């Protein structure tokens, strides 16, 4: 219940934060929803914590030229409630609304969540389906990585030492697009046993565009590329979802075995696609 001692810095500017982080073994604290419980159980005992909570200019949601930018310290609740996200990127708002509980959504940040890269986190499925990008900055670099290249393994991302997530970049959706985030939440933790995010566009009553991201099922979130292709090629939903998880090693725990998880991914994909279809115009 009681964390170990640590040194604490709350830099007032991004540059200062990046300098601090470049200075050695530093743990970045954003919303703290993953880090602080681990510190209380003493599973995590960082010597130096750099709190991004006082860095100005990391909390924003903007849109220009069809691109939505969300600052790293924007909270899940801000994302689920923001008219801009609800209007132009509703899939992300829906995913944000399914994270944890309201208290967690009030503190937890999008940057912190994706940097943590829990294999059962909610955002990654949507970021993949949205073909989003993650902007990473360090004291001397600034680069953008596609979501599909970002999540590498459980708790392992493309973030290099010294880098932090500064913003998430997403395409603004067209009004005609249908979307859905379908999740089976673990009854205790609320984490996604599986979560499937789908985007569907229709042309002449047929699926002309499909993007599907799956979280919780495997070591990291992945895009169901085969299923997308099949859907775009006119296959039935059942045919398409039957390919989901092929080639992936499914996770297994007390609550859901690998076989069951794989099955759930397909069931939830079917449900997500069906709802997305009804929402597409």
């Amino acid at each position, binding site marked *: 219940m009681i964390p170990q001692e640590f040194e604490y810095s709350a830099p007032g500017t991004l540059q200062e934060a990046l300098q601090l982080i470049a200075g050695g073994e530093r*743990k970045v604290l954003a919303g703290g929803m*993953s*880090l602080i419980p*681990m*510190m209380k*159980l*003493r*599973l*995590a*005992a*960082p010597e130096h914590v750099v709190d991004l909570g006082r860095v100005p200019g990391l909390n924003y949601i903007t849109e220009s030229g069809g691109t939505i930018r969300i600052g790293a310290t924007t909270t899940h609740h801000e994302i689920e409630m923001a008219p801009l996200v609800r209007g132009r990127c509703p899939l992300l708002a829906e995913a944000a609304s399914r994270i944890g509980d309201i208290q967690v959504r009030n503190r937890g940040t999008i940057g912190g969540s994706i940097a*943590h*890269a*829990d*294999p*059962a986190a909610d955002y990654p499925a949507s970021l993949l389906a949205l073909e989003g990008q993650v902007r990473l900055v360090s004291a001397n670099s600034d680069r953008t990585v596609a979501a599909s290249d970002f999540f590498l*393994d*459980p*708790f*392992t991302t493309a973030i290099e030492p010294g880098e932090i997530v500064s913003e998430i970049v997403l395409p603004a959706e067209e009004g005609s697009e249908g979307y859905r985030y379908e999740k089976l939440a*673990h009854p205790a*933790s609320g*984490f996604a046993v599986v979560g499937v995010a789908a985007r569907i566009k229709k042309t002449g009553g047929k699926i002309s565009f499909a993007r599907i991201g799956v979280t919780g099922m*495997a*070591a990291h979130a992945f895009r169901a590329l085969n299923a997308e292709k099949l859907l775009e090629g006119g296959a039935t939903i059942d045919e398409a979802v039957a390919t989901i998880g092929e080639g992936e*090693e499914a*996770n*297994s*725990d*007390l*609550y859901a075995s*690998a076989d069951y998880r794989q099955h759930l991914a397909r069931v939830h994909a079917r449900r997500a696609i069906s709802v997305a279809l009804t929402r597409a115009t």
Partner: protein
Amino acid sequence: MKISGAHVISVPQERAYALLQDPAVLGRSMPGCDALEKIGENEYHMKMKMVLASMNGLFDGKVRITDANPFSSFRLIVEGAGKIGFMRGNGLLTLAPLENGTNVQYEGSVEVGGTIAAVGQRLLDTTSRMLIKRFFDKLSTEIAASGDKAGSALPA
């Protein structure tokens, strides 16, 4: 928890067998481990720094090799304990020749105790597999660095 899987390494079976039991190679390949120190026949002292997500912990323990059946199989037992709990991996490694190397199949169990067992069960399976994968990836790097390649003459 039961674990099983297979990895291919790009050296012939006898060489693979030797590498997988070489404490220097094992020490460098095991994630978070620097070196193994011999404390007995086929028994080594191990210090491991486990870093996973925000979790980190030092484990102090042993690596043992038993049931050696030269070139085809042996058992690798890794045990460590630290402030955050303890862990134990026990796997039977079975080697089989392939055209371009050796297939290493493993079958065994991973057990954890203490605080990590209380919060880690949902992640035990996926992270164990990741760590095993990292082990074999590092082993491959070691092999590449040492100039070993499939089919090369065996240094005895």
